């Protein structure tokens, strides 16, 4: 009976369906976009340099292979060497980080932030300077610099291969990069740091927990959330804002839907009045109206989810380029392209909200229909 009413009053059914479909699909897309923004911030922050997990002061008897566990995509060895860079009378205090350029290019995006010259090449005595240090030393790509790791150590000659700018202070001030193994530096004997990159979907907290056992026990491993609490908060804030937006949008949309439902139910009051005369009980009237509301919501929500999922799928592959709005943001230093991503939460919340909000919206018109005298209804039409 309810489906018969809905199908035969197809115009009003269509209007209500469109309202619910657009609300559900828009919210699915918005929440997928919010997840995509968070993903982009994490990917940008993690893939620029630090990885999902950072291991500090790892003894030299532990190798990169020891850190390769199930779920780990790659481990990058980095050896920090503090010292002075000299260019004639100009001097800068730096932490020179010895890296493997080939591996770094595979997992990190620092090389993409090159400003002048080129990135490091394996086996060459070269240094990749931040632009601010290059300015401080008044040097250009191709110039040679002296690096002295301490007061009583021999200086090493290095060629500037290129400069970079990330926009992140931590990288732009006081850091420079050097090709590991190209010359004799203390990195060969000292403790090292590790940047660990995880496969998609692997939980970094669980992985650090695994590192606490066995050979790697006692080594401090920190996740990106430990190292970048500001980013963690930003992401949580983003989720909170999205939750509030979904709630507000649904409150606004649902009041619209509620009004529409009320109008359509009360518009059919003649039908309910006739049925009352024919002996339909108040409970049956309520069941009929609620069945209509639930049926229309289920059908419209299913359509809304489909439209939302299709919309997200389209942009999930091509991405949405928001570089113009993120170029000065440190959490979008690598790329400003957002790839919306669906989660169980983003798929289920909008249709469930639609149902939860629309059912109460049917209460008032139902009570109104039930309480109204059949004679009054028929007299008024």
């Amino acid at each position, binding site marked *: 009976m309810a489906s*018969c*009413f809905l199908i*035969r*009053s197809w115009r009003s059914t269509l209007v209500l369906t469109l309202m619910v479909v657009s609300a559900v699909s828009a919210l699915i897309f918005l929440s997928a976009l919010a997840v995509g923004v968070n993903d982009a911030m994490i990917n940008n922050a993690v893939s620029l340099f630090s990885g999902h997990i950072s291991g500090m002061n790892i003894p030299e008897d532990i190798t990169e292979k020891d850190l390769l566990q199930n779920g780990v995509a790659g481990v990058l060895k980095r050896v920090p060497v503090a010292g002075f860079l000299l260019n004639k009378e100009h001097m800068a205090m730096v932490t020179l980080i010895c890296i493997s350029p080939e591996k770094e290019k595979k997992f990190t995006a620092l090389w993409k932030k090159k400003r002048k010259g080129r990135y490091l090449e394996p086996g060459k005595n070269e240094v990749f300077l931040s632009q601010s240090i290059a300015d401080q030393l008044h040097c250009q790509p191709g110039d040679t610099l002296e690096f002295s790791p301490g007061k009583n150590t021999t200086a090493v000659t290095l060629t500037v291969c290129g400069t970079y700018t990330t926009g992140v202070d931590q990288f732009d001030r006081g850091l420079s990069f050097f090709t590991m193994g190209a010359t004799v530096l203390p990195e060969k004997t000292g403790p090292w740091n590790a940047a660990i990159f995880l496969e998609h979907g692997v939980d970094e907290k669980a992985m650090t927990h695994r590192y606490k056992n066995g050979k790697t026990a006692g080594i401090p491993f920190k996740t990106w959330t430990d190292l970048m609490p500001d980013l963690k908060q930003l992401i949580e804030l983003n989720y909170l804002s999205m939750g509030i937006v979904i709630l507000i949008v649904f409150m606004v949309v649902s009041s619209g839907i509620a009004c529409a439902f009320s109008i359509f139910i009360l518009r059919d009051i*003649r*039908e309910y009045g*006739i*049925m*009352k*005369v*024919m*002996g*339909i*009980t*108040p*409970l049956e009237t309520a069941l009929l109206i609620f069945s209509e509301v639930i049926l229309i919501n289920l059908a419209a929500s299913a359509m809304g989810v489909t439209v939302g999922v299709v919309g997200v799928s389209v942009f999930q592959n091509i991405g949405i380029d928001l570089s113009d709005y993120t170029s000065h943001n440190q959490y979008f230093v690598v790329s400003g392209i957002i790839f919306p991503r669906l989660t169980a939460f983003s798929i289920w919340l909008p249709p469930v909200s639609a149902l939860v909000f629309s059912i109460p919206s049917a209460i008032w018109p139902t009570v109104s229909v039930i309480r109204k*005298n*059949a*004679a009054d209804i*028929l*007299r008024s039409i």
Partner: protein
Amino acid sequence: MIQACSISKSHQSGRGTKKVLHDISFSVPRGSTLAIIGKSGSGKTTLLNCMGGLERPDTGSIHCLGVDLLGLSKRELSRFQRTKMGFIFQSGNLLSYLTVFENIAFPLALNRLEKERRTTELLEKTGLLELKSAMPHELSGGETQRIAFARAIAHAPQMLLADEPTANLDSQTGEMLVKSMFTMCRKEGCAIILSTHDHNLVSLSDKTITILDGKISHEKKHQNT
């Protein structure tokens, strides 16, 4: 037997309280017909509504088929209307989202009775079988009233209430409808109470009461068998 005893009813409106029915009493035996006549606004519809349980009188009692109608709960009243009563309105009041067939089958479905055979039988009797898939808005006034009549008697009620069923019909169609209504109801032992302006139809009923300003001004029995 349907029995109304000292029914009074007032309506509240912006213009104050208006007494619509005043001390109305009558009885209709099983299988017989009662016509209520009176001018517009005399209280005919209100009286029919009270008899069908659609409105509650202020005072008095209504006993239908041995049941005190005013003593029933909402649910019990709905069940009583569903099984024992049939209604016909001036404008037909077919359910607009249902086809002709579905409209007639509706009370049968409500009472969990066999639908196909009975509905087809009624459509044949009313001569509207070819319209079984039509929607109510596609019907003429006469066709609508014939379907409304078929729907009202589909579940074989023991009491039929008809509020000016011929008001929107020409006199010939109206008379045909009322004649077939009376014949079929007498055959099935169903009591009919109808209100009408049409004095030609009055003579077809077993008894007539005339209402004037909410009171019975005249009562007359006819010889119709």
